[in-house]
């Protein structure tokens, strides 16, 4: 794999990629096995092992939510966040964001979708991806934007798993529920 592609990949992960780099990686990732596995490796290292990447991804994440929920600013295109397909659009005022940011965010998601990381639901994956390739601002459920779990997300789920084990252990006869707690560990 070319150093250029590698560089673009890193830039995307850090949220620093420009539109050209995004297009190049997206064009390539479908047919380039090596690029795909590199992305996967970057992702795994980034969000599970390396502490500093928590900040990087949290920063990116922060930007998504700023954009979707709270940010204003002089932007190019509106986005209507939605919670769920069935819910329809919310009444939130249209949020605005720079095209560049939206693409950076969408690309990260789209890449994750392409390489098939464990995600929630992906009925709209194709749509999301096309939107990115067309260089448009993402429309669609918010959930589609944040399918990639960061270390923080994983840690939060782990904490709730332990709380569930505690609740079960405290509330039922016998020690069997505490076994999960005693043996808890993510390898």
């Amino acid at each position, binding site marked *: 794999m070319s150093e250029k592609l590698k560089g673009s990949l890193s830039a995307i992960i850090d949220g620093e990629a420009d539109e050209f780099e995004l297009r190049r990686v997206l064009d390539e990732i479908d047919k380039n096995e090596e690029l795909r596995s590199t992305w996967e490796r970057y992702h795994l290292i980034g969000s599970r092992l390396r502490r500093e990447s928590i900040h990087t991804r*949290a920063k990116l*994440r*922060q930007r*998504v*939510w700023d954009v979707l*929920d709270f940010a204003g600013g002089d932007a190019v295109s509106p986005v209507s966040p939605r*919670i*769920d397909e*069935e*819910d329809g659009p*919310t*009444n*939130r005022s249209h949020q605005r964001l720079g095209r560049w940011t939206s693409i950076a965010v969408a690309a990260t998601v789209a890449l994750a979708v392409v390489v098939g990381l*464990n*995600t*929630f*639901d992906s009925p709209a994956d194709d749509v999301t991806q096309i939107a990115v390739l067309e260089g448009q601002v993402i429309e669609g459920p*918010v*959930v589609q934007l*944040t*399918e*990639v*779990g*960061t270390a*923080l*997300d*994983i*840690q*939060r*789920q*782990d*904490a*709730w*798993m*332990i*709380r*569930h*084990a*505690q*609740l*079960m*252990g*405290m*509330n*039922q*006869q*016998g*020690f*069997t529920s*505490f*076994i*999960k*707690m*005693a*043996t*808890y*560990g*993510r*390898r």
Partner: protein
Amino acid sequence: MKRFGLALILVLGSFGTFAADDGDPRVWLSDMSRAFTDLSYDGIFSYFSGNDMASLRIVHMVVDGEQRERLVHLNGAPREIIRTGEKVACILLPGDELRTLADSIPSGPFARAFVRRYDQISEYYGLTFYGEGRVADRQAVRLRVSPRTDDRYGYRLWLDKSTRLLLRSELIDLQGGRLEIFQFTQILLGDQVDSAALEPTTRAGTVKDHLTLASKSSQPVPERDMLWQVDWLPNGFTMAAADIRRASSDLKSVHTMMYSDGLAAFSVFIEDMPSAGAASMVSRNGATVAVTHLVAGPNQAHHLVTLVGELPTPTAKRIVKSIRYRRSP
């Protein structure tokens, strides 16, 4: 001969309902439940979950009418869980990830729930005996617990023939695969158990975290007072406990709801959206699945709902997607 007969009567007597309902699996299950709390035992067991295998020791006794229990993780980082009546202490090394994780969410007294109600489960599970087996050199009766619908898991249980203590259990997925195996490899029962074995190992540098069950008198939050509702539940699941808790630091609240069908259970946690955002994601650890999803709360503000339970993923997802904010509580 006479003495032998007397001893036999004493043994049978101490195991309660041995002869009465020998053929009813429901009775065996409630006996199993009682055996957990009433018997004295000290054993080593293996626990296989997901891709991992662990060895633990459990010591259990009733001392002066109070439940005493000690669970020791025998591999890896030293961990012990000590139960004295309504209090549970975890003894861990300071750097243990369990402690870090537990600290990252609001804590407090645990809501009191009654998760296992073995009398009702035959509506949702078929219960059949299927022969005998031997576990930890003891004779066991095998009991199959099969879900009547494909939205939950089944179990295979090996119950000690004379005391009905659980000697081995398997958690079975919809394809018949085993997600978890618990099995005693060695066990002492009754008078063989020494109360000294209840004392925690003292290790330099270990720390204690305490958990306390809410007092019996404290009223659970009634279901109608909860601000959130679950629109779809698998048949037979009802709310076992509910709780609203505020973390003192940032005044954010966490709503906790627990549901059970008498055997399987899951917890739902609803929290304010973290400022750094969050992912909708699914994780699985053996039989336990965690599903995190976004839900619109008051004023359309995003909230994060996380379901954790021993359920098939599709069931868990469907439940999570049906969670709604109650607009006028």
